[in-house]
């Protein structure tokens, strides 16, 4: 079934509409193992919808999702997690009042005798994961997340996502709120994920980040894929043009009768 060339995740002609708004229209998308795929586009291009639909928060209206070459139906974040798909959301989804270990195991706490937390084992694994990702700026894994810097929080969120034998990590705007040095750290982390042979999707506005880490770039515009570029063979100029003026196969609104005059 799955050969070395089979993309880890492949979307074929997926669409999603919210009422009259066509958020995604027949989009193709793929990411391979060990590859960083950037997903770029202007506000409202459909990036977030795509991510949320991949993990089953919204079902696609049409199209096919292939994971490892096999058609799958994902009905929610739990299903996605079972497949090894993890999303690191923009707002990080960390609980400020809990410590680093508790956050990394949130919702998947390890327990002895049914329900009593196995703190030692969780702390150990958390440290090993952080170590393996060379996250070296934490003073304690028992400090609350509230006390961490933006970069540290992002690192914890990323580390959390790779703890679960995940194979595909989707990062939603991972550097949006970060300073220069912290952005650097997070981008290094992203590269390390790909070196581990994980598939990585990085959703971003920031073209600098894209050219820093991405292997390939998918450009969305008004819910359609307008370009699929290889970083080595493209320029920022080209990507910007695709984002702002990429050719659409289908004029938005044409599906709706009332906008026939548009």
């Amino acid at each position, binding site marked *: 079934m799955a050969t070395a060339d089979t993309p880890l995740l492949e979307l074929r002609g997926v669409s999603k509409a919210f009422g009259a708004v066509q958020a995604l229209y027949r989009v193709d998308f793929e990411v391979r193992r060990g590859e960083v795929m950037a997903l770029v586009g202007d506000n409202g291009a459909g990036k977030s919808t795509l991510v949320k639909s991949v993990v089953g928060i919204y079902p696609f209206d049409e199209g096919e999702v292939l994971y490892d070459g096999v058609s799958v139906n994902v009905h929610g974040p739990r299903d996605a997690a079972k497949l090894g798909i993890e999303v690191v959301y923009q*707002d990080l*989804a960390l*609980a*400020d009042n809990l410590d680093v270990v508790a956050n990394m195991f*949130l919702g998947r706490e390890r327990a002895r005798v049914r329900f009593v937390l196995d703190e030692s084992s969780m702390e150990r694994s958390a*440290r090993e994961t952080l*170590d*393996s990702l060379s996250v070296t700026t934490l003073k304690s894994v028992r400090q609350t997340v509230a006390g961490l*810097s933006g970069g540290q929080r992002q690192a914890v969120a990323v580390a959390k996502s790779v703890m679960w034998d995940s194979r595909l990590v989707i990062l939603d705007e991972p550097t949006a709120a970060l300073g220069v040095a912290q952005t650097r750290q997070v981008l290094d982390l992203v590269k390390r994920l790909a070196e581990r042979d994980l598939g990585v999707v990085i959703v971003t506005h920031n073209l600098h980040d894209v050219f820093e880490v991405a292997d390939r770039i998918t450009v969305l515009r008004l819910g359609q894929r307008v370009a699929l570029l290889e970083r080595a063979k493209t320029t920022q100029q080209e990507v910007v043009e695709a984002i702002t003026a990429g050719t659409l196969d289908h004029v938005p609104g044409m599906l709706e009768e009332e906008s026939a005059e548009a």
Partner: protein
Amino acid sequence: MSDRPGDADTTADPTAARVEPVAADALADDVSAASFGGYVRLWWQGIRAGELGSLPIIVGLLVIAVVFGILDDTFLTERNFTNLLLQMSAIATIAIGVVFVLLIGEIDLSVAFVSAVGGVVMTLLLRPEDPGWSWWAAILVALVCTTAIGFVQALVITKAGVPSFVVTLAGLLIWSGVVLILTTQASSVGTIRIQDETAVGIANDFLSSTAGWVVAALVVIGYALSELQNARTRRASGLYAKPIVVTVLQTVGLAAVTFAAVWYVNKDRGVPKVTVILLALLVFWSFIASRTRFGRHVYAVGGNAEASRRAGIDVDRVRIAVFMISGFMAGVGGIMLASRLRSVATNSGGGNLLLLVIASAVIGGTSLFGGVGRVVSALLGALVIASIQNGMDLLGLASGTKFVITGLVLLAAVLVDAYAKRRRAARGVV
């Protein structure tokens, strides 16, 4: 996790790591916390950075003891100390439930009257011949009722999405009405005596001196064993553990306080049974909150409900369970109150009970915004509240004055907390 070949980033090979602590110069604080000097240094750093823990309350209790001790000769007597324990227990018990509710960032304004429902149901079921139930059945049914009340209120809160403030405010009115209806129907004077020795004994009986010492010993040994066990599993899995010296000092400190308290109350009537019940509940709920998956989820929901939902936690189920805990603990507290007064009346659950209970939880250090606080804060807060009430009663202060002073103490507690929070924020620890 990745154990694929060629993964240069994973540090040591896993077999070696099993014995040796993870080489982590990054986690400097975790390392230094393992030595005595380092532990103390970090603790002091924490205090200075505004992580005050229970320190302000302990200082507060000392101040209260000194002030009322000077103002009134009887305040520090063994008799009054025992009374204090009796008065505090019901408030602390109900406050434990409130702490859980506050931890998920909600509020339960109905607890006082729900507690009264518990007391009234028990009392009615204990009336001889009518229906003349045995004490345990009456208590069981009373607790089932109050837990069910918590469940129903939580259903409205979670399924209809109405804020808990409003739902439990409605609950406050409804259950105060129910208490009135039940008590006036059952008795023309509006007071019903409890006619069962065991039920009355809950808050009026005392342990023998020997039993008191045994309880104290169990508390201390239990604490020491759980700490040692904890340290052992941590060392066994190669983690840095709290230095043994610290554990010993903490155990000695706990032993000193516990044995002194038992010695003192034994000079009077002995350890009140109700205090033992409170301690057992405290240990049980502390364990649930800090050591179980459910407890972790309670904190997570209070800290970031959306993150919890995305992490696959059934947020509504946690909320419902917490309101059921609140109803259950209110019921237990209501039974204690009824037992102490040997009766229930039309005014059960009224007065300032609700305010004292919520003030206890907050004074104990539980945040109203969710996610921060410990179960033991219910006990500490109730101790503060009850000793102030007790002291002011001894001084014979007017009702109005008592309210003003209680309010000022609550305000002071919240201000200390706010100051500590600012201090933490200033140091980037938030």
